């Protein structure tokens, strides 16, 4: 299998990573090299094997529905690129 240039650009769009035409070309070659490695998996018959998502067989813990964190909004927003009145600012999305 090998990725086309259009597929690389499509994936980059899905991942929200801007790529120029020349970057996409370079990336295409590298990704196809990596997929060549990954393709070894396809020769393996895994019918009947339960997929393993995780190293430990855990179920999600539940906790009481109670406030456990202190209000640290100011501290957390101090590292944001742009805030105002406790809100994160982004370019306008609704006209």
């Amino acid at each position, binding site marked *: 299998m090998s*990725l086309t240039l259009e*597929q*690389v650009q499509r*994936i*980059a*769009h*899905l*991942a*929200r*990573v*801007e*790529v120029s035409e020349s970057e996409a070309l370079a*990336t295409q070659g*590298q*990704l196809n*090299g*990596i*997929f*060549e*490695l*990954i*393709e*070894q*998996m*396809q020769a*393996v018959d*895994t019918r009947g*094997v*339960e*997929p*393993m*998502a*995780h*190293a*430990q067989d*855990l179920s*999600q*813990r539940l*906790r009481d529905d109670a406030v456990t964190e202190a209000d*640290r909004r100011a*501290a*957390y927003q*101090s*590292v*944001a*690129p*742009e805030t105002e009145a406790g809100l*994160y600012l*982004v*370019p306008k*999305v609704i006209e």
Partner: protein
Amino acid sequence: MIHSSLKALSAALASRQISSVELSTLFLDRIDRLNPEINAFVTVDREKTLAMARAADARIAAGNAGPLTGIPIAQKDIFCAEGWLTTCGSRMLSNFVSPYDATVIRKMHAEAGMVSLGKTNMDEFAMGSSNETSYFGSVKNPWDRSRVPGGSSGGSAAAIAARMAPAATGTDTGGSIRQPAGLCNLTGLKPTYGVVSRYGMIAFASSLDQGGPMAGSAEDCALLLNTMVGFDERDSTSLDRPAEDYARDLDKPLAGLRIGLPKEFFGEGCDAKVMAAVQSAIDEYRKLGATIVDVSLPNSHLSVPAYYVIAPAEASSNLSRFDGVRYGYRAPEYGNLDDMYAKTRAQGFGGEVKRRILIGTYVLSHGYYDAYYLQAQRIRRLIANDFVEAFKTCDVILGPTSPSTAFKLGEKSADPVQMYLSDIYTIAVNLAGLPGMSLPCGFVDGLPVGMQLIGNYFDEARLLNVAHRYQQVCDWHLRRPDGID
């Protein structure tokens, strides 16, 4: 003093032979002198370090010190530490001063009274095996400054090897503690998945990531592991287990121990001189009373392919949080919101991180999920089952940590696949979630060779015992690079 074990440093602090301020200053001065060339540290803050050292001295004076109170340590820059720049080796977080402590950091600072010397360089978001993907430049291996220290915990490894720190934290998703430990003549341990909290440890591949200690000996690693572990309700996969002392079995004799050698780790693909060093370690173990048995991990050749589906899939999801909105880098110029995301991520991430995000996005996308992601998870099961079988006939598994000694800076950085294959012996351990460690077992042309020990789930104390007994009869781990005195 700088070459002392943590146990010896602890005794020196307890007997007031030295204060934590004096000890920390000793290492800070070495960082000032050696770091400009080695580049092991990204951030050093003398005032913060000395404030912690003074607090530790007060604790020692008040008589409520723990075994590691006042001991300086270097922290991999993947661990959030309140008030410290925490970059994860990325431009994306090059301005991120963490507003909170990772659990590992809180345990070391608040509970153990340890003193952080600074934050160490690393491959960007822990994605790399040479430390060359760091936004802050590559790190030089103190054993040969034209070579890589390994990665992703390469800064931590180089810091200890050049004795800019007596110990360090690392994290290991596919070998990132064990491989640099091997290439820098250190002892490092990746615990069983779930034993060390991942809270505040910047996520790469959440089902594989695990923090652990890097130091000069198995005994030091045991002491550090004691401070790092424990149930944490802030980590959804943290395991609630009874506390244990990982140093309890260090001196246990090895008579009767069954060491398994997987034939897949002793075939072609490994440098012959590296293999010879590992073989002499096996002979040492025979002398120590261990029995050597042959085992097989028939699916281990699939671990690199399966890993390069699973880890990028999880990474593409984890790294979607870096969008220029809540923290970190934001592109200076952009149009609409989508453009802001795309430019921020294009500029904030380096090439390797972007490659892995793209692989992950692809294998999780509609139409490819079953063929890649589910197939990789099924192979992960086969790999884990291989270990279950192997541990029916042996107690620990032994092999090389890496197929070669430290390679040259730039040697593999242009070819991602060659770089990925340098973790061929370490990755299966992460997929299975087992504990593994690397310890020094010799030299090839002046460069350190690491051997890997793999244990069954929760068998860290036994691994440390097996490593410690070896370090009682061999002195490889005490050798120092030229010019480091």
